[in-house]
């Protein structure tokens, strides 16, 4: 239990895995491993991190083929026979090494109309929304998303269909569709319906399986499917 054999992706879309030997310690995270490589073995390695305590999602990478927050992934949990393969998140363009271009991810968020639109101003009274109402509970179940991209990387439909908006964008759209203060519900449902939207979800549930915040985009997307159905039946779509 003294050394790890670590393969790290180097390069952009074209590149190769580079091997490193990293000292193994008890209570070591994959982020510790990447940090050690960059500081002690190869200063040219590019990677992202920020809080390193499981709050910001910046350190998300592919570890042995699975998208994870590396600061929250203990080496003991994932290293089989003291080996690790670390790669950039799937389904996103690679800028360099372990750093991906998140613009497409957030563009889809915008295309899904993933931002709140209200009508009240600061001169009016607060909206009163009971936190334990059924509708608000549905919203609360999905609002803790921090946009880390793990679900988007885990999703096979995103890999197969480049137009697919993906679990994070659709999850956010759902929280807004169910938000009683929001006023663009119909436009949003139109934005998330169809081949590139909620109807392309086949309930693989990889997003739900991998979300580090414990959210279920599958549940949100199912909600969107039902909401679109209601909208079509009412002639609103």
């Amino acid at each position, binding site marked *: 239990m003294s050394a790890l054999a670590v393969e790290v992706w180097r390069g952009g879309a074209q590149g190769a895995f580079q091997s490193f030997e990293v000292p193994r310690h008890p209570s070591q995270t994959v982020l510790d491993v990447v940090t050690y490589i960059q500081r002690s073995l190869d200063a040219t390695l590019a990677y992202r991190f920020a809080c390193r305590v499981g709050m910001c999602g910046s350190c998300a990478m592919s570890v*042995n083929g699975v998208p994870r927050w590396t600061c929250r992934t203990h080496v003991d949990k994932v290293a089989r026979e003291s080996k690790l393969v670390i790669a950039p998140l799937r389904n996103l363009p690679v800028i360099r090494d372990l750093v991906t271009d998140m613009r497409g991810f957030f563009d889809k968020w915008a295309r899904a109309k993933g931002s709140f639109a209200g009508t009240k101003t600061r001169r009016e009274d607060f909206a009163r929304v009971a936190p334990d109402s059924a509708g608000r509970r549905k919203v609360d179940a999905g609002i803790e998303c921090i946009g880390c991209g793990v679900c988007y990387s885990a999703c096979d439909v995103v890999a197969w269909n480049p137009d697919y908006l993906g679990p994070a964008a659709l999850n956010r759209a759902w929280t807004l569709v169910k938000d009683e203060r929001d006023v663009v519900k119909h436009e949003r449902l139109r934005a998330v319906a169809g081949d590139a939207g909620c109807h392309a979800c086949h309930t693989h549930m990889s997003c739900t399986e991998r979300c580090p915040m414990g959210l279920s985009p599958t549940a949100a997307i199912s909600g969107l499917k*039902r909401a679109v159905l209601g909208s079509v039946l009412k002639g609103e779509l």
Partner: protein
Amino acid sequence: MNRHSSYWVFLVHRLSGIALALFLPVHFWALGDALQLDALLAWTEQPLVKFSEWGLVVLLAAHLGAGLRVLALEFLPWRDWQKGLAAAAAALTLAAGLAFALAL
């Protein structure tokens, strides 16, 4: 990439669907030629054909089981145990396969 049960159920659902879509025109064509049914039935007595028939019943039951799981996930109120529906779909398939095997 580690694969979990919901992904396998999806794969079974999709592959069985493709297989059934390929099989059905043949099935319809054979039945449409019903005048030759006895000759067809004699042909179906062969063991390889019997095994294929069993395979088709299993594919149909698998597709149904996995499809019921999709309908449950999309239309029923969400519960965390719904991941276990994959197992339910598998059980249904097994039951149908056994029943048909016993009947043959």
